[in-house]
């Protein structure tokens, strides 16, 4: 009897180990395939011609993706400018000011926000934000500004949930100490709680950036996808992700390889962002 139970335990252990390893395997496979497909073009065309090239005309032999790298960073920063303060404000309210009842109402609402498919954000962006920008600010409406607003809203759940957790993990004694010294609630929050949770908040911003860099569908719908580096926030632009999704359908030969090279660059950028975020979080844990 005991032998049987032991055996079953052993079996389950193996199955679970397999599950855990499979995710690693998938990661490895994705990595391997993108590199195998993407790297040959770097050899053929030249590293700097791809990374620093300004002209993207893959059917005519130009594979420069520099404008898209810049654009990806621009929309990410734009999203952070809009989503960062808003998200931090919301997290601070939830952690410091909201009563239990409001928390019960707000937390699920935020989770719902995270669950809305990105195509819905894009759709609403096209229907409301793009025409609004066109009427009020001018230009075609498909622009850096519209994209930043849509992405700013999309990164809210990430920013809020992680900075909320880090605000909550600030020990109660800090707040009590500050209040006992005669500081007001806001002074305590601004001078004591937020600085103590600094690294977690920073990590939430970086993970939000990761989400913004990787977002595709909503960006294609509102960014206008022009190939130039935008000279104002009202001009259209194309990010790395939307470049892949836009052109994959008809791409063949070198054009296809060019899209995989775009994927390689994207993979590296997201790896760096995740690494920085992990580093920031780990530093906080060690403290």
């Amino acid at each position, binding site marked *: 009897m005991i032998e049987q139970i032991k055996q079953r335990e052993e079996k389950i252990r193996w199955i679970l180990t397999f599950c855990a390893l499979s995710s690693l395997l998938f990661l490895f496979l994705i990595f391997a395939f993108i590199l195998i497909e993407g790297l040959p073009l770097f050899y053929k065309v030249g590293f700097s011609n791809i990374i620093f090239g300004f002209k993207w005309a893959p059917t005519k032999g130009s594979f420069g993706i520099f404008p898209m790298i810049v654009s990806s960073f621009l929309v990410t920063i734009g999203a952070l400018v809009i989503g960062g303060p808003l998200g931090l404000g919301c997290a601070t309210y939830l952690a410091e000011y909201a009563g239990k009842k409001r928390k019960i109402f707000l937390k699920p609402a935020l989770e719902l926000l995270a669950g809305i498919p990105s195509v819905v954000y894009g759709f609403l962006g096209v229907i409301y934000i793009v025409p609004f920008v066109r009427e009020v600010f001018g230009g*075609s409406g498909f622009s850096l500004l519209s994209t930043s607003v849509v992405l700013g809203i999309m990164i809210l759940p990430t920013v809020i949930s992680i900075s909320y957790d880090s605000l909550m993990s600030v020990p109660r004694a800090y707040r009590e100490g500050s209040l006992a010294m005669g500081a007001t609630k806001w002074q305590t929050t601004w001078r004591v709680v937020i600085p103590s949770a600094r690294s977690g908040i920073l990590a939430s911003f970086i993970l939000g950036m990761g989400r913004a860099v990787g977002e595709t569908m909503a960006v294609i719908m509102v960014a206008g996808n022009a190939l130039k580096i935008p000279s104002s926030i009202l001009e259209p632009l194309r990010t790395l992700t939307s470049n892949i999704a836009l052109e994959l359908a008809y791409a063949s030969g070198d054009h296809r390889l060019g899209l995989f090279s775009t994927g390689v660059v994207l993979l590296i950028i997201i790896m760096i962002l995740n690494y920085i975020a992990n580093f920031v979080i780990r530093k906080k844990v060690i403290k």
Partner: protein
Amino acid sequence: MGKLYLSIILSFFLIITSCNRGNVNNQKRHLVNIAGSTSVMPFTEKLAEYFMVGHPEYIVNVQSGGSTAGIQACINGTVHIGMSSRELKEDEKVLNEIVICYDGIAIIVNPKNPINDLTLEQVRNIFSGKVKNWKDLGWINRRIDAVTREEGSGTRGAFEELVMHKVHIDDGIMVQDSNGSVKEVVATDPYAIGYVSLGMVDKKVKALKIDGVEPSIENIKQKKYKVVRPFLYLTKGKPEADAQVFIDFVLSKEGQGILKKEGLVPVND
């Protein structure tokens, strides 16, 4: 526990064996392989679907890959029929061309735009970035929001060939990834201009006259409207018997009717 394993293994077997069933079809004798242009492919697939309903003993395989790839495959004899959405070059003229239909490309603007007529050169200047303001075309002082298709698209390829004549489309121009989204942008932005397949034009957008000629099926048939590309089927010499049956179907009243319903201009009504 044992039963669970057994059922999992059994279901795997079922999945694998049901996949194999596809091969049984190969016993049917008549096989037609078609490859080529990504613009012609969706229509050929549609035609093949209808065709195979009426001719269950035939199998029509349709693959994309682009006009050039299709032409090459046809010259090499790897496919029975090649598809092309561009005219053949001199050294490709060894192939037998069959025009199955024509596709007009309409230059569209928002219905609020008072302009009805542009010359081909004006359209070219807009998309090459030379003309950037509607004022230069006799309307208000407002930037032109031009929209093009993504690199690799067949419609863009035809537009580059028929309108741009080797002039590059400017990098600052917006890009959308389907006829539908180009139309959507033009329908919502009063200052936009774009191009789509003629079949896509409806009341939400206004198709411009080019050099004074309205883009209509009638004008395309009479070769008055110039922004038109042929959809070609290519065969090496005389088509093989099986391929001929399919081609006959495409050129028949039924086949042409299907193409017309898709918004293309049939060769024989």
